[in-house]
């Protein structure tokens, strides 16, 4: 990693770490919420980047796993089970299981088929949410109580927004650390290799399918984790959180940050959300500006923000 990238990484992490202290000073407490959302989306973007940036798998359906993670928490909460030690592992396992199923089928295909199939599977999950009358269908479902973590006499709660903010921050750091280790490992080498020349890897006796599928599942689980956090943070889930434009936005965050760097997606998510926050405060017709901006970004912004700050290929 080049110096410029690591320093911009460090700056952004310091901004994340200090935001709950800085926001009240500038009199804009809602910045804390904005940055909590940015970190949650960052986690999802890091997850998607694992397969998109490193594995070259263009999944257009990762909002589904965010939705699955979120809905699992919300449905547990609906049935008055709020213990995070039950909610979270189950949510992660379901996200992983669904990713395993969808991935196993989708990875049989290539290129544009893969894009469309991941999209279609995600829409299937979306329609499942829409038709779930018991759980609010289109109107969504309130999460009345955030998860709490009870072991013996200790009961850790995340009801306080600042506490929860730092929980999210900590999880983001963990996810980044884990992903960094993963892409530098032998597994990561195979994954990157399968993007550039799969036939060669198969020839030397590596079954890339299982590596790609594993990466797909891990990526789904990370997005599921982001969904768990989102449901807890917003105290609300709805089918909208897994509708296909969310998958598109997630892809944009990854692209904006630059493919193939671990930290790129975090910068991308930050840029994407800050930009939409600013534009939407200017005019209600902000999509009129945002849409073309995104097009220009795709056409001329290859390498994304991390490319801007110095290319890295870790």
């Amino acid at each position: 990693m080049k110096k410029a990238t690591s320093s911009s990484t460090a700056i952004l992490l310091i901004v994340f770490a200090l935001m709950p202290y800085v926001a009240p000073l500038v009199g804009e407490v809602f910045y804390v919420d904005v940055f909590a959302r940015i970190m949650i989306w960052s986690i999802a973007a890091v997850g998607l980047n694992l397969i998109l940036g490193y594995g070259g798998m263009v999944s257009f359906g990762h909002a589904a796993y965010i939705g699955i993670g979120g809905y699992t928490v919300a449905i547990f909460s609906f049935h008055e089970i709020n213990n995070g030690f039950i909610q979270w592992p189950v949510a992660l396992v379901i996200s992983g299981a669904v990713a395993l199923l969808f991935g196993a089928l989708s990875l049989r295909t290539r290129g544009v088929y893969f894009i469309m199939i991941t999209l279609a599977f995600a829409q299937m999950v979306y329609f499942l949410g829409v038709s779930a009358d018991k759980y609010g269908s289109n109107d969504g479902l309130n999460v009345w109580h955030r998860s709490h973590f009870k072991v013996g006499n200790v009961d850790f709660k995340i009801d306080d927004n600042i506490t929860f903010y730092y929980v999210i921050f900590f999880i983001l750091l963990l996810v980044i650390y884990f992903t960094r280790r993963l892409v530098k490992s032998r597994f990561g080498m195979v994954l990157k290799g399968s993007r550039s020349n799969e036939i060669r890897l198969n020839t030397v006796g590596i079954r890339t399918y299982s590596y790609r599928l594993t990466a797909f599942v891990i990526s789904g689980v990370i997005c599921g984790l982001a969904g768990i956090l989102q449901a807890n943070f917003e105290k609300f889930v709805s089918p909208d959180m897994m509708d296909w434009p969310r998958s598109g936005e997630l892809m944009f965050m990854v692209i904006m940050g630059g493919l193939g760097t671990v930290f790129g997606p975090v910068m991308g998510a930050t840029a994407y959300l800050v930009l939409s926050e600013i534009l939407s405060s200017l005019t209600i017709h902000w999509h009129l500006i945002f849409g073309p901006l995104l097009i220009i970004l795709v056409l001329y912004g290859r390498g994304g923000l991390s490319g801007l700050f110095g290319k890295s290929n870790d």
Partner: protein
Amino acid sequence: MDINIFIEQLLNGFQLGMLLFLFAAGLTLVFGIMDLVNLAHGSIYMVGAFIAATITLWLDSFILGIIFALPLTLLFGMVLEFIALKTIYARDHMDQVLATFGLILFLNEFVRIIWGPAGLAIPLPILLDGSIDLPLGIVYPAYRLFIIIIGVLVAIGLYWLVAKTRLGMLIRAGASNRIMASALGVNIRLLFTAVFGLGAMLAGLAGMLIAPINQAQIGMGEEILILAFVVIVIGGIGSIRGAFIASILAGVIDTMGRAFLDVLLLALLPSNAAEAAGPALSSMLIYLLMAVVLVFRPQGLFPPRGG
């Protein structure tokens, strides 16, 4: 089960299938020949519906609305191709998806500014506002039958165009090997614009036909877009024949599922489980169909020949 209701729902399925076909034909052609994934195809459908609805309200005639809106949609499609899309042909599919996603945001907002946030409703044309008596004592709405007939006519016309004409020959040549075709003197650039315009017109036509039933509204394009993706994945990307068969399959299965699946489930499952599973399962049916097709034929039912 009442056989009349069954046949009526079957016809509804065909009607949805025909709309899907009109939409998917352009999408699959554009992909087959230009290797372009165009999410904004849905926006053309929407714009077509809005233009036709506006003209219909002005001139108080749906037929005139369609007649004037078709060339306008063609023009809109070609302008879109010329300004925004031709720059992304050479890009990979992900870039195309993202760029056309940005285009959707822009066009939806654009339509919202011109026509306002509410949809535009138009009445059914008087000639077709009513029912027709079919054999076996089936009474069926004339307008829906009209959509089916238009769909079949367009399918026949497209078959004739692609299989029997010189333009069709060029289209097939472009689809199977673009570089070779252009080396042999085919003006690929012009062919692209022509095919894109044709696809845009068909998508616009689909939008115009649905407008009297569902009204023209923002976001209408995205709903059908995803369905059309499923259709062309099932049919085999680039294949018009595949798109036709898969459209009918998807239309019929989706409609029949929504109409009869809960009855079927009630016979098999305890009633509360059936009531919960019915709507969920029926809205997922065509995605399941797609999954099944992919397991057995990852390239779709009619994989395109050549490149």
